Protein backbone atom coordinates (compact mmCIF):
# COMPACT_ATOMS: atom_id res chain seq x y z
CA UNK A 1 0.00 0.00 0.00
CA UNK A 2 1.15 3.52 -0.79
CA UNK A 3 0.50 6.32 1.68
CA UNK A 4 -2.18 8.89 0.80
CA UNK A 5 0.21 11.82 1.21
CA UNK A 6 2.63 10.39 -1.35
CA UNK A 7 -0.19 9.64 -3.78
CA UNK A 8 -1.55 13.16 -3.43
CA UNK A 9 1.90 14.67 -3.98
CA UNK A 10 2.56 12.50 -7.05
CA UNK A 11 -0.94 13.17 -8.45
CA UNK A 12 -0.43 16.93 -8.11
CA UNK A 13 3.10 16.77 -9.60
CA UNK A 14 2.09 14.72 -12.64
CA UNK A 15 -1.02 16.88 -13.13
CA UNK A 16 1.22 19.98 -13.19
CA UNK A 17 3.36 18.38 -15.93
CA UNK A 18 0.25 17.51 -17.94
CA UNK A 19 -1.24 21.01 -17.54
CA UNK A 20 2.04 22.63 -18.64
CA UNK A 21 2.12 20.26 -21.65
CA UNK A 22 -1.35 21.38 -22.83
CA UNK A 23 -1.04 25.02 -21.75
CA UNK A 24 0.15 26.26 -25.21
CA UNK A 25 -3.44 25.60 -26.40
CA UNK A 26 -4.67 28.34 -24.09
CA UNK A 27 -1.78 30.80 -23.96
CA UNK A 28 -0.49 31.02 -27.53
CA UNK A 29 -2.11 32.21 -30.73
CA UNK A 30 0.38 31.12 -33.39
CA UNK A 31 3.03 28.51 -34.15
CA UNK A 32 5.66 31.28 -33.84
CA UNK A 33 4.56 31.99 -30.26
CA UNK A 34 4.56 28.25 -29.56
CA UNK A 35 8.07 27.86 -31.05
CA UNK A 36 9.48 30.38 -28.60
CA UNK A 37 7.36 29.46 -25.57
CA UNK A 38 8.82 28.45 -22.22
CA UNK A 39 6.57 25.37 -22.29
CA UNK A 40 8.27 24.13 -25.46
CA UNK A 41 11.66 25.00 -24.02
CA UNK A 42 10.93 23.10 -20.81
CA UNK A 43 10.14 19.84 -22.59
CA UNK A 44 12.69 20.28 -25.40
CA UNK A 45 15.17 17.92 -23.76
CA UNK A 46 12.73 15.10 -23.25
CA UNK A 47 10.53 15.16 -26.35
CA UNK A 48 11.31 15.63 -30.06
CA UNK A 49 8.27 17.98 -30.32
CA UNK A 50 7.87 17.33 -34.06
CA UNK A 51 4.89 19.42 -35.12
CA UNK A 52 3.51 16.63 -37.33
CA UNK A 53 3.52 14.23 -34.36
CA UNK A 54 1.95 16.64 -31.90
CA UNK A 55 -1.76 16.92 -31.16
CA UNK A 56 -3.08 20.34 -32.22
CA UNK A 57 -6.00 22.38 -30.95
CA UNK A 58 -7.08 25.40 -33.03
CA UNK A 59 -3.83 25.09 -34.97
CA UNK A 60 -1.62 25.27 -31.88
CA UNK A 61 0.46 22.19 -30.96
CA UNK A 62 0.88 20.90 -27.40
CA UNK A 63 4.31 21.31 -25.81
CA UNK A 64 5.01 17.58 -26.24
CA UNK A 65 4.31 14.92 -28.89
CA UNK A 66 1.17 12.79 -28.83
CA UNK A 67 2.94 9.89 -27.11
CA UNK A 68 4.36 12.00 -24.27
CA UNK A 69 1.00 13.74 -23.85
CA UNK A 70 -0.63 10.31 -23.39
CA UNK A 71 1.98 9.36 -20.78
CA UNK A 72 1.51 12.57 -18.74
CA UNK A 73 -2.28 12.50 -19.06
CA UNK A 74 -2.62 8.95 -17.82
CA UNK A 75 0.04 9.23 -15.12
CA UNK A 76 -2.05 12.06 -13.76
CA UNK A 77 -5.40 10.27 -14.20
CA UNK A 78 -3.91 7.03 -12.89
CA UNK A 79 -2.59 8.52 -9.67
CA UNK A 80 -6.01 10.08 -9.04
CA UNK A 81 -8.28 7.12 -9.90
CA UNK A 82 -6.27 3.89 -9.43
CA UNK A 83 -6.12 4.31 -5.61
CA UNK A 84 -9.93 4.68 -5.61
CA UNK A 85 -10.28 1.58 -7.82
CA UNK A 86 -7.91 -0.29 -5.53
CA UNK A 87 -9.86 0.67 -2.44
CA UNK A 88 -13.36 -0.04 -3.72
CA UNK A 89 -13.15 -2.42 -6.72
CA UNK A 90 -9.97 -4.41 -7.27
CA UNK A 91 -7.96 -4.85 -4.10
CA UNK A 92 -5.20 -7.02 -5.56
CA UNK A 93 -3.63 -7.22 -9.00
CA UNK A 94 -0.80 -9.70 -9.41
CA UNK A 95 0.32 -8.93 -12.92
CA UNK A 96 1.33 -5.27 -12.59
CA UNK A 97 5.00 -5.98 -13.38
CA UNK A 98 4.15 -8.04 -16.47
CA UNK A 99 1.72 -5.31 -17.55
CA UNK A 100 4.35 -2.57 -17.18
CA UNK A 101 7.04 -4.53 -19.05
CA UNK A 102 4.58 -5.45 -21.82
CA UNK A 103 3.50 -1.83 -22.28
CA UNK A 104 7.12 -0.72 -22.27
CA UNK A 105 7.93 -3.26 -25.00
CA UNK A 106 4.88 -2.18 -27.03
CA UNK A 107 5.89 1.49 -26.91
CA UNK A 108 9.54 0.71 -27.79
CA UNK A 109 8.42 -1.48 -30.71
CA UNK A 110 5.92 1.15 -31.90
CA UNK A 111 8.55 3.89 -31.70
CA UNK A 112 11.24 1.79 -33.42
CA UNK A 113 8.96 0.71 -36.29
CA UNK A 114 8.00 4.34 -36.93
CA UNK A 115 11.63 5.42 -36.61
CA UNK A 116 12.75 3.05 -39.38
CA UNK A 117 9.67 4.07 -41.41
CA UNK A 118 8.10 0.60 -41.49
CA UNK A 119 4.76 2.21 -40.80
CA UNK A 120 3.37 5.66 -40.05
CA UNK A 121 1.16 5.79 -36.99
CA UNK A 122 -1.38 8.51 -36.28
CA UNK A 123 -1.23 10.99 -33.42
CA UNK A 124 -4.12 9.11 -31.83
CA UNK A 125 -2.20 5.79 -31.95
CA UNK A 126 0.79 7.55 -30.35
CA UNK A 127 -1.46 9.04 -27.68
CA UNK A 128 -3.00 5.63 -26.94
CA UNK A 129 0.37 3.85 -26.71
CA UNK A 130 1.65 6.60 -24.40
CA UNK A 131 -1.45 6.47 -22.24
CA UNK A 132 -1.10 2.70 -21.81
CA UNK A 133 2.47 3.15 -20.55
CA UNK A 134 1.42 5.97 -18.19
CA UNK A 135 -1.47 3.94 -16.80
CA UNK A 136 0.56 0.74 -16.40
CA UNK A 137 3.24 2.71 -14.50
CA UNK A 138 0.68 3.91 -11.95
CA UNK A 139 -0.81 0.42 -11.71
CA UNK A 140 2.68 -0.97 -11.03
CA UNK A 141 3.54 1.63 -8.37
CA UNK A 142 0.22 1.22 -6.59
CA UNK A 143 -0.35 -2.55 -6.85
CA UNK A 144 3.11 -4.13 -6.96
CA UNK A 145 4.30 -5.62 -3.68
Amino acid at each position, binding site marked *: *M*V*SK*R*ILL*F*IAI*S*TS*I*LFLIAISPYYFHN*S*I*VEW*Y*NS*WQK*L*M*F*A*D*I*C*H*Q*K*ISRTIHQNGIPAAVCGRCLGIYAF*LSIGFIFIPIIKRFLIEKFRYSKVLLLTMFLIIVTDYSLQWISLYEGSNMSRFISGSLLGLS*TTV*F*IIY*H*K
Partner: protein
Amino acid sequence: MEPQQSNDISYWNAVTLTGIIFGLIVFVLNIIGGYATIGAEPSGGWVGPSMFTGLFSCLLAAFGGMVAVRIHLKQNPQPPLQLGRGAMIGLATGIVIAFVSTVLGLIWNIIDPSFSQNLIEASIANIEAMNIPEDQKQEMIDSVAAQMQQMYSVGGLVMAFVLSSLLYGILNMLTGMLGVKFYSPNEEV
Protein backbone atom coordinates in the same frame (compact mmCIF):
# COMPACT_ATOMS: atom_id res chain seq x y z
CA MET B 1 23.73 -1.30 19.13
CA GLU B 2 20.81 -1.87 16.74
CA PRO B 3 21.58 -1.88 13.02
CA GLN B 4 20.27 1.17 11.15
CA GLN B 5 17.43 0.65 8.67
CA SER B 6 17.67 1.97 5.10
CA ASN B 7 15.11 4.64 5.95
CA ASP B 8 17.21 6.14 8.76
CA ILE B 9 20.44 6.42 6.76
CA SER B 10 21.17 9.58 4.79
CA TYR B 11 20.63 9.13 1.08
CA TRP B 12 22.70 12.16 0.05
CA ASN B 13 25.72 10.02 -0.81
CA ALA B 14 23.78 8.17 -3.51
CA VAL B 15 21.91 11.32 -4.59
CA THR B 16 25.08 13.42 -4.99
CA LEU B 17 26.99 10.69 -6.81
CA THR B 18 24.15 9.93 -9.22
CA GLY B 19 23.27 13.62 -9.66
CA ILE B 20 26.83 14.56 -10.59
CA ILE B 21 27.26 11.65 -13.04
CA PHE B 22 23.91 12.18 -14.77
CA GLY B 23 24.30 15.98 -14.69
CA LEU B 24 27.64 15.59 -16.43
CA ILE B 25 26.12 13.29 -19.06
CA VAL B 26 23.27 15.77 -19.71
CA PHE B 27 25.77 18.63 -20.01
CA VAL B 28 28.13 16.76 -22.37
CA LEU B 29 25.31 15.60 -24.65
CA ASN B 30 23.79 19.09 -24.72
CA ILE B 31 27.16 20.61 -25.63
CA ILE B 32 27.64 18.01 -28.40
CA GLY B 33 24.15 18.86 -29.65
CA GLY B 34 24.97 22.57 -29.54
CA TYR B 35 28.12 22.17 -31.62
CA ALA B 36 26.28 19.85 -34.02
CA THR B 37 23.70 22.62 -34.52
CA ILE B 38 26.43 25.21 -35.07
CA GLY B 39 28.25 22.97 -37.58
CA ALA B 40 25.14 21.79 -39.45
CA GLU B 41 23.87 23.28 -42.70
CA PRO B 42 20.63 25.19 -42.05
CA SER B 43 17.89 22.78 -43.13
CA GLY B 44 14.86 24.90 -42.34
CA GLY B 45 13.43 22.05 -40.27
CA TRP B 46 11.57 22.50 -37.00
CA VAL B 47 13.77 19.91 -35.33
CA GLY B 48 17.54 20.44 -35.03
CA PRO B 49 20.44 18.08 -34.19
CA SER B 50 20.60 19.34 -30.60
CA MET B 51 17.07 18.10 -30.04
CA PHE B 52 18.10 14.48 -30.59
CA THR B 53 21.10 14.58 -28.24
CA GLY B 54 18.96 16.50 -25.74
CA LEU B 55 16.20 13.94 -26.05
CA PHE B 56 18.62 11.06 -25.44
CA SER B 57 20.30 12.78 -22.49
CA CYS B 58 17.05 13.64 -20.77
CA LEU B 59 15.49 10.23 -21.30
CA LEU B 60 18.62 8.83 -19.69
CA ALA B 61 18.57 11.43 -16.91
CA ALA B 62 14.97 10.58 -16.08
CA PHE B 63 16.25 7.24 -14.76
CA GLY B 64 18.66 8.91 -12.32
CA GLY B 65 16.16 8.37 -9.50
CA MET B 66 16.10 4.64 -10.12
CA VAL B 67 19.90 4.45 -10.21
CA ALA B 68 20.20 6.53 -7.00
CA VAL B 69 17.80 4.17 -5.20
CA ARG B 70 19.84 1.21 -6.46
CA ILE B 71 23.10 2.77 -5.20
CA HIS B 72 21.50 3.66 -1.86
CA LEU B 73 20.29 0.09 -1.42
CA LYS B 74 23.70 -1.31 -2.44
CA GLN B 75 25.39 0.84 0.18
CA ASN B 76 22.69 0.15 2.78
CA PRO B 77 21.21 -3.22 1.90
CA GLN B 78 18.90 -3.56 4.91
CA PRO B 79 15.35 -3.62 3.55
CA PRO B 80 12.69 -2.41 3.64
CA LEU B 81 12.94 1.03 1.99
CA GLN B 82 9.86 3.25 2.15
CA LEU B 83 8.25 4.22 -1.14
CA GLY B 84 8.13 7.86 -0.04
CA ARG B 85 11.84 7.71 0.68
CA GLY B 86 12.43 6.44 -2.86
CA ALA B 87 10.38 9.36 -4.19
CA MET B 88 12.46 11.80 -2.12
CA ILE B 89 15.72 10.22 -3.38
CA GLY B 90 14.46 10.61 -6.97
CA LEU B 91 13.29 14.20 -6.43
CA ALA B 92 16.61 15.22 -4.88
CA THR B 93 18.54 13.44 -7.65
CA GLY B 94 16.56 15.31 -10.31
CA ILE B 95 17.30 18.67 -8.67
CA VAL B 96 21.03 17.83 -8.39
CA ILE B 97 21.09 16.81 -12.08
CA ALA B 98 19.46 20.13 -13.03
CA PHE B 99 21.89 22.07 -10.84
CA VAL B 100 25.03 20.31 -12.11
CA SER B 101 24.07 20.63 -15.80
CA THR B 102 23.12 24.33 -15.36
CA VAL B 103 26.36 25.20 -13.55
CA LEU B 104 28.48 23.31 -16.10
CA GLY B 105 26.62 25.13 -18.88
CA LEU B 106 27.51 28.42 -17.21
CA ILE B 107 31.17 27.39 -16.92
CA TRP B 108 31.23 26.33 -20.58
CA ASN B 109 30.13 29.82 -21.60
CA ILE B 110 33.19 31.18 -19.83
CA ILE B 111 35.48 28.58 -21.49
CA ASP B 112 34.02 29.19 -24.96
CA PRO B 113 32.37 32.64 -24.96
CA SER B 114 31.51 32.37 -28.67
CA PHE B 115 29.39 29.24 -28.11
CA SER B 116 26.11 30.99 -27.29
CA GLN B 117 26.57 33.61 -30.04
CA ASN B 118 27.33 30.89 -32.64
CA LEU B 119 24.29 28.91 -31.46
CA ILE B 120 22.04 31.98 -31.86
CA GLU B 121 23.43 32.59 -35.37
CA ALA B 122 22.94 28.92 -36.36
CA SER B 123 19.35 29.00 -35.06
CA ILE B 124 18.61 32.20 -36.98
CA ALA B 125 20.16 30.74 -40.16
CA ASN B 126 17.89 27.72 -39.77
CA ILE B 127 14.80 29.92 -39.37
CA GLU B 128 15.80 31.89 -42.48
CA ALA B 129 15.79 28.61 -44.41
CA MET B 130 12.29 27.72 -43.19
CA ASN B 131 9.44 27.63 -45.65
CA ILE B 132 7.15 30.09 -43.83
CA PRO B 133 5.82 33.60 -44.64
CA GLU B 134 8.39 36.41 -44.40
CA ASP B 135 6.66 38.33 -41.59
CA GLN B 136 6.37 35.19 -39.45
CA LYS B 137 10.02 34.44 -40.17
CA GLN B 138 11.11 37.89 -38.97
CA GLU B 139 8.96 37.65 -35.86
CA MET B 140 10.46 34.25 -35.10
CA ILE B 141 14.04 35.46 -35.63
CA ASP B 142 13.54 38.45 -33.30
CA SER B 143 11.94 36.26 -30.69
CA VAL B 144 14.60 33.50 -30.90
CA ALA B 145 17.44 36.04 -30.67
CA ALA B 146 15.87 37.68 -27.61
CA GLN B 147 15.11 34.33 -25.99
CA MET B 148 18.59 32.89 -26.55
CA GLN B 149 20.32 36.02 -25.29
CA GLN B 150 18.12 35.93 -22.21
CA MET B 151 18.88 32.22 -21.79
CA TYR B 152 22.53 33.00 -21.07
CA SER B 153 21.78 35.85 -18.65
CA VAL B 154 21.55 35.30 -14.87
CA GLY B 155 17.74 35.49 -14.96
CA GLY B 156 17.62 33.08 -17.89
CA LEU B 157 19.88 30.59 -16.13
CA VAL B 158 17.76 30.74 -12.96
CA MET B 159 14.63 30.19 -15.09
CA ALA B 160 16.31 27.25 -16.90
CA PHE B 161 17.30 25.76 -13.54
CA VAL B 162 13.77 26.09 -12.14
CA LEU B 163 12.17 24.54 -15.24
CA SER B 164 14.65 21.67 -15.48
CA SER B 165 14.42 21.04 -11.70
CA LEU B 166 10.65 20.75 -12.05
CA LEU B 167 10.86 18.36 -15.00
CA TYR B 168 13.83 16.27 -13.81
CA GLY B 169 12.52 16.35 -10.23
CA ILE B 170 9.10 14.92 -11.05
CA LEU B 171 10.37 12.36 -13.57
CA ASN B 172 13.13 11.16 -11.24
CA MET B 173 10.64 11.02 -8.37
CA LEU B 174 8.61 8.53 -10.41
CA THR B 175 11.66 6.48 -11.37
CA GLY B 176 12.82 6.62 -7.73
CA MET B 177 9.52 4.98 -6.77
CA LEU B 178 9.95 2.45 -9.56
CA GLY B 179 13.45 1.78 -8.20
CA VAL B 180 12.02 0.97 -4.77
CA LYS B 181 9.50 -1.39 -6.37
CA PHE B 182 12.17 -3.13 -8.48
CA TYR B 183 15.09 -3.26 -6.06
CA SER B 184 13.48 -3.28 -2.63
CA PRO B 185 10.57 -5.70 -2.99
CA ASN B 186 9.67 -5.56 0.69
CA GLU B 187 9.15 -1.82 0.71
CA GLU B 188 7.27 -0.25 3.60
CA VAL B 189 4.25 2.07 3.48
